[in-house]
């Protein structure tokens, strides 16, 4: 019944006495023969479990199922040794010699090598080293113990020097976590597990650890009950899953799973991506060398605060969200990596939870195969990540101010993150951190319309950076022009022309966030500049921000010397697209030879996706301004968005003939090829665009997609590390 044991019984192979650990060949035989009988056994399992039947089930799973899942576990992998460490350490007093003996006992099991032989793993170091490492190993083996269905036993550890706060934190969290990872087991079992863990760490299990959470956290209780209650239907799901699992297993053979995984995600694809983003966010959060211990301190403070607070606002429903988020966070350690699980929908939350759960071992294995340090990083990252949320949450609901680290975090993330909806803001920011691999700090600022300057700017101190910038821009050296113009606006922050050209340079460089930020500054300096208003309208259209785009396009009309009279100022309070379009059409009738009106009209039609009309407007404008490269690009983009990709490529080509360094047009070319399924071609154009502006984040993202679609997973690493040399060599245009 227990899904975890089915999937992850691999951990159980370390249990002395089980056939799998003592005899790898028997394990193999079990894998081949035993799996067929397994389904039946599972069908017999009742859906409501009594503690007595539970025991029996675990025994079964150890015998039959543990072996079944051998292929999931790399016995060389760190996960395994972690488990061993936890288990054997506990059994015999934690001596290293015993661990070594156990290790040698099962290492190396021959039948599995072929699956993983592409990735030799470093062996896990023995349970020693800095306290943090030891702590994380122990916690990890605690998590692992859920897989084997084996009670976790206390392990004497050297003194870790945990403070009372640390202890309380671990106590609180482990009891929460245990209720998740042992959700299908009895309360007694959970308590025993938690107590074993706490005992190892020399922490007194108090009421919180021993039983249900105390009364003042009643909502939390409900939350747990609910989550555990809704899991019950999952048992049906479990059978279905088992069946599918077996099919999957029997058909492609033992390493079908492994190879499929690799196909889908590339060797180490997901794990490395995850690591990278995690590490990025660690760097981000740490900005100013906050050590991981400081992060632990943060969490500790939170735990104290929570424990002491009786504020009724805790009962706010957001508390539930918070807890849910937190618990989901805990599960990150152990989850993700979508695998071959097909569950009949058994209630949203239950199935989602179950899904997360079932996938956990696969993910963990993958994750762990990347070396022992990762878990430590993960662990500390987790703590850091929760710290800030917690803080903000505490501030928001209890009005308690935990100054130190709130300030620290606030400084790093910027003012906005501590605003009203701080939790949401934080979550948004976090998403951005995760997805930014290089310019994380920049992105979270630019998304709020704050211009981000380059770090090293050789043009600072230049006698006339504006002139230099204009010159560079004319030559088509966009990234250089950006630097010169930044120097200009640093020198003269009120120079609208400097900001405007900077914005244009960014737009042509395919960076709308920066373009918007620069244009907003230009508009501050000169609120009626028509080019600025149009540029803002275009950029917001590109970013799919319709209301903002409409506002600026209407502003263009209102401030136009000729058409301004058409635009009643009171309209700007409640802009309706139809009104604005009507006014522009009037303007176009007034002066049909004004290319600009047609351009704005074309942008406006893009907003409502009336692409045919938009194309018509741009074509009219092009007759009047045939050498306007940005106009050709606008035409191309419109055609591409209305799925006339072939026409679009012609238009982009016109733009590039007029301006060979037009990064946006190169990137758009790539998009058009990709949308036509011509991924190989699209890659070349993306790489070309990126070679000219390595900061074009969209192009990096699209390049990544095209690489996987073109089955060029071999180049994903170069893409992730933004190695343009390799990419340019591989994909010349």
């Amino acid at each position: 019944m227990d899904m975890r044991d089915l999937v992850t019984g691999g951990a159980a192979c370390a249990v002395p006495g089980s056939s799998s650990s003592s005899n790898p060949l028997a394990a193999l035989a079990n894998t081949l023969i035993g799996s067929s009988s397994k389904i039946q056994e599972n069908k017999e399992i009742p859906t409501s479990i009594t503690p007595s039947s539970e025991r029996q089930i675990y025994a079964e799973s150890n015998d039959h199922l543990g072996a079944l899942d051998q292929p999931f576990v790399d016995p060389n992998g760190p996960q395994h040794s972690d488990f061993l460490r936890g288990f054997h350490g506990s059994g015999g007093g934690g001596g290293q010699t015993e661990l070594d003996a156990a290790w040698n006992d099962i290492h190396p099991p021959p039948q599995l090598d072929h699956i993983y032989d592409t990735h030799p793993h470093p062996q896990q170091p023995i349970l020693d080293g800095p306290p943090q490492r030891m702590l994380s190993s122990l916690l990890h083996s605690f998590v692992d113990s859920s897989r084997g269905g084996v009670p976790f036993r206390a392990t004497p550890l050297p003194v870790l020097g945990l403070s009372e706060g640390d202890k309380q934190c671990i106590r609180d969290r482990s009891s929460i976590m245990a209720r998740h990872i042992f959700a299908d087991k009895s309360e007694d079992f959970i308590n025993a597990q938690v107590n074993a863990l706490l005992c190892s760490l020399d922490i007194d299990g108090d009421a919180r650890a021993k039983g249900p959470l105390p009364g003042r956290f009643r909502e939390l209780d409900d939350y747990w009950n609910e989550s555990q209650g809704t899991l019950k239907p999952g048992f049906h799901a479990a059978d279905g899953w088992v069946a599918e699992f077996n099919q999957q297993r029997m058909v492609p053979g033992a390493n079908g799973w492994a190879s499929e995984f690799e196909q889908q995600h590339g060797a180490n694809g997901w794990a490395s991506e995850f690591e990278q983003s995690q590490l990025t966010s660690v760097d981000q959060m740490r900005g100013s060398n906050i050590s991981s211990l400081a992060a632990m301190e943060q969490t500790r403070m939170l735990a104290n605060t929570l424990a002491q607070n009786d504020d009724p606002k805790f009962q706010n429903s957001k508390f539930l969200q918070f807890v849910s988020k937190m618990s989901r966070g805990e599960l990150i350690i152990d989850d993700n990596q979508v695998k071959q699980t097909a569950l009949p929908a058994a209630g949203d939350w239950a199935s989602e939870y179950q899904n997360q759960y079932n996938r956990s071992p696969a993910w963990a294995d993958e994750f762990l195969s990347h070396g022992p340090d990762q878990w430590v990083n993960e662990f500390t990252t987790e703590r850091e990540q929760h710290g800030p949320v917690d803080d903000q949450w505490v501030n928001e609901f209890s009005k308690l101010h935990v100054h130190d680290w709130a300030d620290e975090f606030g400084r790093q993330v910027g003012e906005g993150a501590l605003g009203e909806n701080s939790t949401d803001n934080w979550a948004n920011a976090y998403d951005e951190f995760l997805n930014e691999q290089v310019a994380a700090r920049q992105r979270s600022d630019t998304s709020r319309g704050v211009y981000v300057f380059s770090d090293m700017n050789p043009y600072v101190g230049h006698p006339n950076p504006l002139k230099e910038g204009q010159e560079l821009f004319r030559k088509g050296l966009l990234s250089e022009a950006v630097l010169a113009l930044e120097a200009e606006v640093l020198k003269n922050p009120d120079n609208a022309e400097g900001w405007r050209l900077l914005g244009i340079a960014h737009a042509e460089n395919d960076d709308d966030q920066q373009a918007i930020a620069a244009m907003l500054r230009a508009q501050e300096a000169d609120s009626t500049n028509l080019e600025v208003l149009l540029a803002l309208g275009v950029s917001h259209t590109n970013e799919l921000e319709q209301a903002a785009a409409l506002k600026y396009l209407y502003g263009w009309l209102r401030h136009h010397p000729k058409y301004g009279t058409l635009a009643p100022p009171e309209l700007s309070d409640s802009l309706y697209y139809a009104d604005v379009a009507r006014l522009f059409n009037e303007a176009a009738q007034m002066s049909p030879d004004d290319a600009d009106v047609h351009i704005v009209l074309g942008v406006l039609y893009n907003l409502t996706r009336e692409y045919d009309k938009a194309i018509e407007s741009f074509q009219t404008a092009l007759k009047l301004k045939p050498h306007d490269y940005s106009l050709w690009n606008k035409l191309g983009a419109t055609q591409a968005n209305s799925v006339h990709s072939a026409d679009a490529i012609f238009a982009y080509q016109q733009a590039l003939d007029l301006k060979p360094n037009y990064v946006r047009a190169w990137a758009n070319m790539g998009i058009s090829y990709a949308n036509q399924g011509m991924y190989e071609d699209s890659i070349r154009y993306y790489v070309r665009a990126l070679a000219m502006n390595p900061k074009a984040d969209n192009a990096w993202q699209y390049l990544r997609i095209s690489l996987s679609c073109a089955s060029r997973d071999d180049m994903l690493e170069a893409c992730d590390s933004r190695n343009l040399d390799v990419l340019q060599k591989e994909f010349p245009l």
Partner: protein
Amino acid sequence: MSTNQELKSDALMEQMKQHLASDAGKQLTKKINLVYQINIAPKNIGFNEVVYTVDLKKGEVTKGPYEGGKPDATFSFKDDDFVKVALGKMNPQIAFMRGAMKIKGSLSAAQKFTPDIFPKPSKM
């Protein structure tokens, strides 16, 4: 019509609709052959959701819940998050992990929901 209530996702869905009529779109239909229902909320998942059915069996995008039975998988997003996932800015796994994407239905069907099924918007 008021543009204030427009979702960013509407633009992507519209493009998807047209994309499915193209050759590349037809190949996609052949390759995936599943029906997804996507619930998009302006601010908070579960509130004021706009429901789209992306039928990659028939090659259609329609507004409203799937009427031909049960979709293979149903996703719930916030508007911004859907855009991020569809444009490859956020990995679906990370989205799921962070709670930015909720999944109902078959997980193996959900796995085929990747950023490459959506056409990318070009920029003016």
